[in-house]
Structure formats: structure tokens, C-alpha cells
């Protein structure tokens, strides 16, 4: 039995008391004295030349403080990109400027042109209607392949083309892969799309900028997953504010899913404008604005080829992907289709030769960046789809084909640069087959058939990489940031503890699970431990939360800092107990001298540290506070087997998800309930992507799914009761907790399982359907069945 509130306990989330009783404090709850409201005027065309902006009538409107346009931002930098990818030929990617407000041209529907700042939001909106903006609409490029045609309209006139980069990985393998594919017994080919998504966190983005001229200090309150990253990017690259004069606070944040990682123009705007007008400036995104200004996710078009020998042994894999960057490079956009995607193309399999080609393309659409899973769902989707197709073509059971190719020896160096430390893919597959009653499927299929429905079962086995690391390696790969994490453990005089972490919680429950770790290590009640995050003035420089990195990297930093605390506390205890340090044992919050009944309690030691009357002052500083920075040696590699059972209504094409089982290996588990919740959420998003979510543009670049009337979010009744299991545990070998991370797995493994299930249902019914592009909406399934 895990200790109450310690590692392994399903402790209820302490943060839920405030979230569920309406006491959470979100950015929009922050209202400063004398605050103004910003209203962004955004482009309603996808591409155009701004001929003129006349703001005089708007500026004369009641309550208006000022109207801002690009002119006001001439002295500051553009919104920076945090990752530089080098292409196949050794050249850096093409990197256009991303101005805070559109300069001369608008490049996507939603591109901000001007901002009205006024006493009230209504006044700002009224004045915005008086702005005279003259734009000449230009032809837009929306489709990636069109964008790469010779003579295509360019999104950025100063670039040579719409190609951001042409990346090859591993470039040295290119010819060998071509050869292996040419000579193979069988090659399975699949062309597919990974549909564009809108993250849609429940809380839209908000920014409040504040400036105090008496201290020259700027404060930005923002809905961010990583306030220190925003401080660095905005301070150093956009506005030129040194860190000690810039505080960034990300208080309670209502979901991020990646879309709140990036530094956005609205943040820089509010910070800048607050100083310019001498009053706080607040912007709250409307839902409609969110659709056209939050970074979108996915949007890959891929051709994948898998070569096999006569026994279905994978020999080589080749992929050709076009990845949509949108109109500008969002903070981490270039890294998603490359280092977070190409490196995962081995999946769980021993494929010896792999070549991944990715062309990143500018189009007149909203920028695209990481969305829950970020590159790994795209990799998993194509791989697990092509493996399923290969199984059918080879006449081998899809489970069996996967098993034949599973990696079984660890550590395993893949041909795509990463080394998996541990895993047991047969174990998760076994677990899945048991949980999903795979053996009983045929009987259930017969029952469906009797009811006029088509039943199908689909499997996906995923690998993912969390806690991207180490910093020196990612630096070589083009990251313009480190990827360590930090923690300060501050023990108070009476023994309670505040942990200041660089990780950020926006729904993950860190305040509970991080406290469980420290509670376990120190042996005091978890309620004695507080987790502080989200404020650059309180926490050490840290990189925030994304890529399922928090427990693996942030948790490890916290463990290291806590170890330093325990070491120092032992020294103090040895002094108090008049024993040698080597004889001190520490357990359940008590220091004892080995082999004696002498002991001193945690609280006595901590008190001695701060009231050092009886204390070895000559040898040690008083106080009990330690900081650690943890830079991981490797990624962690969660993996798992997902199974989806569906029923298709042959008359309408409607897919009903009857069951979904997830058998994950997340390494060690801190809080099983929180882990299950993370998987549930990930599954909902993955099933949403596979079934109904779709961000679509028309060929003029108008967003067809710009509201919930047309962008379908999964609801409870779209989803089955999930079965989740995380009892297959191969602990991570290189971090102190043996943890891997669980935040994105659900969204990574579920789309291919669902599509495989629908294809299975159709094929069983005799339809020659090998693929349907997501989302598998009823009309698409019906069209596939009737084509």
C-alpha cells in the first residue's frame, strides 16, 4: 500500500477545491486599477496589401486612449522563433519576420492589423468600427503543394519561395533506404493527411500588461504554460526589457494543450502598450478570435512506404511529408515535423533503415505549432496505419505482424538517432488484448451483423518521447533554449515546505502530485508541502510544461533539490544528536542514530536551521533552502497498446465508438488517479481528431470551421467508457523517479487505433476501403463505402 499522500497514492487533487468552487484565479480574473481594454482589429482576408490605415476618427471616439498600428512597433523586434532547423543541404530554414502588428501586408485571416485601447471593451470595439483600413486583397496560397509550385504566390515577398525547409533524416540513409525499398519482397504504400486542429482550451488566451514608471518594472499576466520562456523571448527578442525589470505571471490556466506554450503578439502588445499609455492594458480573446489566432495543430500530408521481407519483417521505411507552418513561424513550429516526428518513425519496431523527408511550407493560414503530442501523433498515425495496411496486404494478423517486429532488447538504438532505454511492448500488447476481450470480438461482431451494423477492431502500438533532452543535444539540433528544469525547495522554520518549480500546471494536478513526491522523500504529511509555480518573481528560471516533461524533468529537479535538503538536514541532525553524520538515518520525518534510540524530529532540525543557537555555524550556513537544475540525459519513452472497437451504421456511415482500451507503460506512477485522468483527456482529444474535429479553410483562405457551429469538439456522449491500465511498468533508467510522463499518450495512440477499427469494420463487410482521412465523419465514411 502506498503511503497516504505519498508516491503511488491516488490522492485527490487539492487544486480542485478552488477550481470546482469557482475560486480559481485565472488571468481574466486579474483586474488592475485604471485598466484599459485592448481590441484587436484583425484581417478578414487571407492575404493582402495594407495601403493605408487612418485612425483619426477612431482616436476621437469616446474613451479611446490610443490606436496602435505597426508604426508604433518599428523600434521593437518581431515575435521570435525558438528553433532553427537546418535543411538537407546544410542550409538554415527560411525564417520570415513575424511583426507584432502586420507590417505592410496581412498574411492570414486573423492577422492583427491595429489595436484600439480604450476605457471599456465596448468603447474599443465602437472605435474599431471607425478605423479606415484600406487593403488590396491578393491571391492566397492555402494548399501546401500549390504553395510549392513554381510561380506560386509568396506568403513572404522577401523569401525565395514558400518552402521553409526541406529536411532529410537520416540524410546519410537516403540511398540505402531507396535501395532496400527497391529490392524488397513487398512494399506497402499509404498516402494520408493528419488533419489540422484547433486546440480550444476551455479558457481562451488573456494578457494583462502593467508598467510602474517609479521602478521601471513591467509585469505581464498571461495564460501561459511557461512564464519564464515568455519572459526570455519577449524581454530579450521583442521588447528589449532585461529580466530583472520584467515579471511574467501565469496564474491558474484553464488548459493549454500546447497552444499556450508560444509567445504571442498579444502578450508583447499588452506589455508594450501599458508603458506607452501609462495604464494597464488587458486583452481577453473571444472564442472567435481564438480560432484565428491561437496556433493550430497537426496539418501534415504524408506518403509513407514500408518495405518487408516475405515473413513481414520490416526492412525499410520511407516517408515524404509536407508540414504546414501557416503564415509565420510560431515559437517551436519548425521542430515539430522534424525532431519531434522524424525521430519517432521507428515506433516500436526494429526497422533497420529509415528515411524521413519533411518539407515545411508557408501558407496563408494561422501558424501551426505543437498540439498535444506534437509530431509524435503524426509519426504514430502514419506508422500504425501503414503497419495495419501491410498486415492486410501480407495476410498476417495485425497483432502478429507487430509482434514479429517489436524491439525486445534494451537499450535500443534506433536508426533515427534516439536510444530507447526500456520498454516491454509484448507486455502492453498482451494487456491490451486481455482488457479489450479481443478473443470475444468475433462473437460481438456477429451480434452487430445481426443488428445490421458493421463492427471493427483496431489496434495501435505507440512509442513516444517525453522530456525532450539533453540541452546540449537539442542545442545542436537547433533549439534556441535549454530544456532543463528547475526547483527550489524552501523548508520553513517549523518544517513545512514550499517548492518553487519551473514546471507549470494548467490542469495536470502538479500541486498534488509534486507534493506527493516530496512527502514521500521527507516523510511529512503532503499537506505540509505547497507547490508554487507560474510566477517568474517566485520560481527559478525554468522551461515550463509541455511535451509530457513535468514529472520526468521538473520532478527530477525537485528530487535533486530535496536530496540536497536531506543531506544538509542530516548534518544538522548529527550535530544535534552528537553523532557522526554517517550514522544518521532519516525515515518518516525522523532522524535517528543507527543502533541507538536517539532521535530528533524533522521539525527540530528545521527549527535549528533557522534559530541556529545550537548549530555548527563554523561548518555550515544556517537556513534550509536548496535549488537544483536538472538536465536529463535522454528522452523518456512511454509506450503502449491501444485498442478501439467501433460499430459503423452502413446506411449513414456513422461511427460509434463502443469501447476503447489503453494499456500504457509510463514507468513508475506517482498518482494513478491523475494518470488515468490524463489518459482519459488524451483519448478524448485523439478520438475527437479521428472522428469529428477538423479545421478547414476554403481556397480563399477563409476559415470554414471558425466557431463551434462548425468545429466539432468531442462531447461525453461521443466517447465510450474508457478502460485504462498502467500496470506494465519498465521504469525509466536515467531519472531518479523512474518516471516517463503520461500527458500526451492518449492523443498519440488513439487516432490510428480508431481509423484502423473503422477500416477493419468496412473490410469485414467486403468494402474495398484501405484508408479514410480523418475526421471519420459520417459523410466521409459513407462516401468511402459508396465510391
Amino acid at each position, binding site marked *: 500500500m502506498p503511503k497516504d499522500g505519498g508516491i503511488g497514492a491516488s490522492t485527490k487533487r487539492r487544486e480542485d477545491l478552488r477550481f470546482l468552487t469557482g475560486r480559481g484565479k485565472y488571468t481574466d480574473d486579474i483586474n488592475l486599477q485604471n485598466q484599459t481594454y485592448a481590441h484587436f482589429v484583425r484581417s478578414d482576408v487571407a492575404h493582402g496589401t495594407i495601403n493605408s490605415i487612418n485612425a483619426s476618427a477612431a482616436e476621437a471616439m469616446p474613451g479611446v486612449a490610443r490606436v496602435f498600428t505597426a508604426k508604433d512597433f518599428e523600434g521593437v523586434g518581431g515575435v521570435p522563433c525558438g528553433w532553427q532547423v537546418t535543411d538537407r543541404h546544410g542550409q538554415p530554414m527560411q525564417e520570415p519576420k513575424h511583426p507584432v502588428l502586420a507590417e505592410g501586408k496581412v498574411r492570414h485571416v486573423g492577422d492583427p492589423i491595429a489595436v484600439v485601447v480604450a476605457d471599456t471593451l*465596448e468603447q474599443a*470595439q*465602437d472605435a474599431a468600427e471607425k478605423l479606415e483600413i484600406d487593403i488590396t486583397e491578393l491571391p492566397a496560397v492555402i494548399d501546401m503543394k500549390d504553395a510549392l509550385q513554381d510561380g506560386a504566390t509568396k506568403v513572404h515577398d522577401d523569401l525565395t519561395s514558400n518552402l521553409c525547409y526541406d529536411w532529410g533524416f537520416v540524410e546519410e540513409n537516403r540511398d540505402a533506404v531507396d535501395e532496400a525499398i527497391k529490392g524488397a519482397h513487398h512494399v506497402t504504400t499509404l498516402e494520408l493527411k493528419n488533419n489540422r486542429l484547433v486546440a480550444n482550451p476551455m479558457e481562451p488566451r488573456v494578457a494583462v500588461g502593467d508598467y510602474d514608471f517609479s521602478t521601471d518594472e513591467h509585469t505581464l499576466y498571461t495564460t501561459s504554460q511557461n512564464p519564464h520562456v515568455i519572459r526570455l523571448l519577449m524581454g530579450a527578442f521583442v521588447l528589449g526589457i532585461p529580466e530583472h525589470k520584467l515579471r511574467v505571471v501565469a496564474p491558474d490556466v484553464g488548459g493549454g494543450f500546447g497552444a499556450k506554450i508560444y509567445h504571442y503578439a498579444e502578450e508583447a502588445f499588452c506589455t508594450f502598450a501599458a508603458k506607452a499609455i501609462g495604464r494597464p492594458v488587458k486583452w481577453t480573446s473571444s472564442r*472567435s478570435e481564438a480560432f484565428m489566432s491561437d496556433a493550430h495543430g497537426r496539418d501534415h500530408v504524408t506518403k509513407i512506404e514500408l518495405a518487408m521481407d516475405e515473413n513481414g519483417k520490416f526492412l525499410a521505411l520511407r516517408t515524404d511529408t509536407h508540414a504546414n507552418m501557416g503564415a509565420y513561424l510560431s515559437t517551436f513550429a519548425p521542430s515539430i515535423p522534424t525532431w519531434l516526428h522524424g525521430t519517432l518513425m521507428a515506433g516500436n519496431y526494429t526497422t533497420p533503415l529509415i528515411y524521413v523527408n519533411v518539407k515545411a511550407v508557408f501558407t496563408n493560414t494561422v501558424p501551426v505549432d505543437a498540439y498535444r503530442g506534437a509530431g509524435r501523433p503524426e509519426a504514430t498515425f502514419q506508422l500504425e496505419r501503414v503497419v495495419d495496411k501491410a498486415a492486410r496486404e501480407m495476410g498476417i494478423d495485425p497483432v502478429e505482424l507487430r509482434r514479429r517486429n517489436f524491439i525486445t532488447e534494451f537499450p535500443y538504438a534506433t536508426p533515427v538517432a534516439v536510444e530507447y532505454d526500456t520498454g516491454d511492448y509484448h507486455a502492453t500488447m498482451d494487456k491490451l488484448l486481455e482488457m479489450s476481450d479481443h478473443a470475444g470480438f468475433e462473437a460481438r461482431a456477429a451480434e452487430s451483423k445481426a443488428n445490421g451494423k458493421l463492427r471493427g477492431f483496431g489496434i495501435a502500438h505507440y512509442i513516444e518521447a517525453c522530456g525532450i533532452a539533453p540541452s546540449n543535444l537539442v542545442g545542436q539540433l537547433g533549439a534556441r533554449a535549454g530544456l532543463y528544469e528547475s526547483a527550489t525547495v524552501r523548508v520553513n522554520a517549523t518544517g513545512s515546505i514550499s517548492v518553487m518549480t519551473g514546471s507549470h500546471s494548467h490542469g495536470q494536478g502538479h500541486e498534488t502530485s509534486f507534493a506527493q513526491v516530496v512527502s514521500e522523500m521527507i516523510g511529512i504529511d503532503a499537506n505540509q508541502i505547497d507547490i508554487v509555480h507560474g510566477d517568474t518573481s517566485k520560481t527559478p528560471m525554468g522551461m515550463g510544461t509541455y511535451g509530457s516533461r513535468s514529472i520526468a524533468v521538473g520532478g527530477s529537479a525537485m528530487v535533486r533539490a530535496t536530496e540536497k535538503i536531506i543531506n544538509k538536514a542530516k548534518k544538522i541532525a548529527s550535530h544535534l544528536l552528537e553523532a557522526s553524520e554517517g550514522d544518521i538515518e532519516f525515515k518518516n520525518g525522523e532522524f535517528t542514530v543507527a543502533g541507538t534510540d536517539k532521535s530528533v524530529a524533522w521539525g527540530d532540525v528545521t527549527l535549528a536551521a533557522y534559530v541556529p543557537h545550537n548549530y555548527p555555524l563554523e561548518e555550515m550556513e544556517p537556513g534550509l533552502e536548496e535549488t537544483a537544475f536538472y538536465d536529463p540525459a535522454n528522452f523518456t519513452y512511454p509506450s503502449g497498446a491501444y485498442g478501439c472497437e467501433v460499430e459503423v451504421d452502413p*446506411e*449513414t*456511415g*456513422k461511427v460509434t465508438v463502443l469501447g476503447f482500451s489503453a494499456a500504457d507503460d509510463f514507468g513508475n506512477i506517482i498518482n494513478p488517479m491523475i494518470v488515468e485522468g490524463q489518459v482519459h483527456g488524451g483519448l478524448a482529444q485523439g478520438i475527437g481528431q479521428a*472522428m*469529428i474535429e*477538423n479545421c*478547414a479553410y476554403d481556397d480563399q483562405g477563409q476559415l*470554414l*470551421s471558425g466557431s*463551434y*457551429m*462548425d*468545429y*466539432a*469538439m468531442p462531447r461525453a456522449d461521443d466517447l465510450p467508457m474508457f478502460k485504462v491500465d498502467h500496470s506494465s511498468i519498465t521504469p525509466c533508467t536515467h531519472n531518479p523517479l523512474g518516471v516517463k510522463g503520461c500527458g500526451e499518450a492518449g492523443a498519440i495512440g488513439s487516432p490510428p487505433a480508431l481509423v484502423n477499427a473503422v477500416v477493419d469494420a468496412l473490410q469485414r463487410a467486403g468494402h474495398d476501403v484501405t484508408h479514410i482521412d480523418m475526421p471519420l*465523419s*459520417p*459523410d466521409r465514411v*459513407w*462516401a468511402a463505402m459508396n465510391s
Partner: protein
Amino acid sequence: MYNFDFVSPGSVADAVSALQAEEAQALGGGQTLLPTMKQRLAQPSTLVSLSGLSEMLGVSSDGGVMTIGGATTHATVAAEAGAYPALAGLASHIGDPAVRNRGTLGGSLANNDPAACYPSAVLGSGATVVTNAREIAADDYFQGMFTTALEEGEIITAVKFPIPEKGNYQKFLQPASRFALVGVFVAKYADGVRVAVTGASEDGVHRWSEAEAALSANFSAAALDGLSVSADGMITDLHGTDAYRAHLVKVMTGRAVAAAA
């Protein structure tokens, strides 16, 4: 949202005169109008609220006709129109509880969204739309997407639904809005069957006369076997092509017949 005045009249007559004011507009449950105003797509100077008018509230049945007040909410219809189960069932699946507790029959019919549910019940029942000024037969009332026979300032005070022997509404959900991608209302009367289709056509709600004829002769799903629906004039959008909608019209009609009670 722009500023507006709010009037809460005590009677239909007062409401009618309040609506004479320039740019005045009736407010039912606000489930369509308020979102439009929030997006600054509508700018009425005065909202004349109908929701408190007792003359326009309630469900009653008499002599085979169910009369529902124009300001009656979907939730009330769902709960109180038990004498016409197909209609109560339709109302119970409009939107979500918040929408059903605010949205009204009159508002839905005045708006005549091409994907709304109620228009198919009104047309499928051959109902009569009663206004402050006149009575309008359903066949004359619906005039295309978002277009009706209502005059400026005219108020729907009630709708009279002849109760059929059997009826049913089948709604195939548009996955995002959960309005009808295609909805079919079938009602069987002593003198024949009516079939009304919503969600499908560029002309809004309409009757499917071939099906009516076939079902009047033989009220069973099999009666539809030989029929087909043309894709011409059907809506194509992100959620379905014209051909798919045409196909669904037939499938949903068959299901409505099979489920009719």
C-alpha cells in the same frame, strides 16, 4: 454588443405597438438573437421581450388539435406536449438544456434556420401559424432559408398542430452544432401522410411529395424502396455533400416511418 433599449410589454397588443418603433425587434428566448448581437451582426435599437406574455404561453389540446403559445419554451413543449409524442420528442432534442429552457417555438419559426427542427414539425403537421394579425398555413409560411411569410413587426402568438394518428421525427446530427444535418418529420393523418425535410435543402424546410404519396398508399418503410431523392439543390458544406444529404433524406424518412407512434 451595441446598446439597446429593453421593453417588457404586458400584452400582445402592447408588444405589437412597441415593435412599431424604428429598429425594434422581438425577443423570444434570445438563443439566436443574442449571440448575433454579441457578435455585432445585429443592432436592434429596442428589444421587445415576448417571453413573459401569458397569452403566448402554454400547451393545450382540444378536438385533435394541439395549440402551443409562441413564447413557449422547448423544455415546456418537451414536458407538456405528451398528446403529440413526435413533437414532444423533437423539442426534447433541440440544443442543450440551457437552450431548451430559453428558446421558444415562435423564435425558432420566425428565424427559420434551414437546419432547425421545429419548421419540419410545423410543415410536416400541416400546422397553422397564428400571429397577432392572421392565421398562416404552414405551406404558405416557409419561404426559403431564413425567410418566412411574417411581416415586419408581426408576432407569432401560437401554432395549431393537428395531432396525427402517428408521427415521428428523425434527426441526424451535424456533429459540431448538433442541429439537423438532415431531419425528417413524418406524420400520418386519416387523409394522408405528410413528410417534411429540414437541414438538407438550399431552399430550407420542404415537403417530399413522392414519399408522401407512397406512404399514404402504404405506411411502411418498404414503401420508399423505389424512391430516390435528387441531390440537386441540396446543401454541400463541410459536414456533408449534396449527395450524402439526399441519401440521408431517404434513410431518415424510412426510420421515421418505422419509429412512428
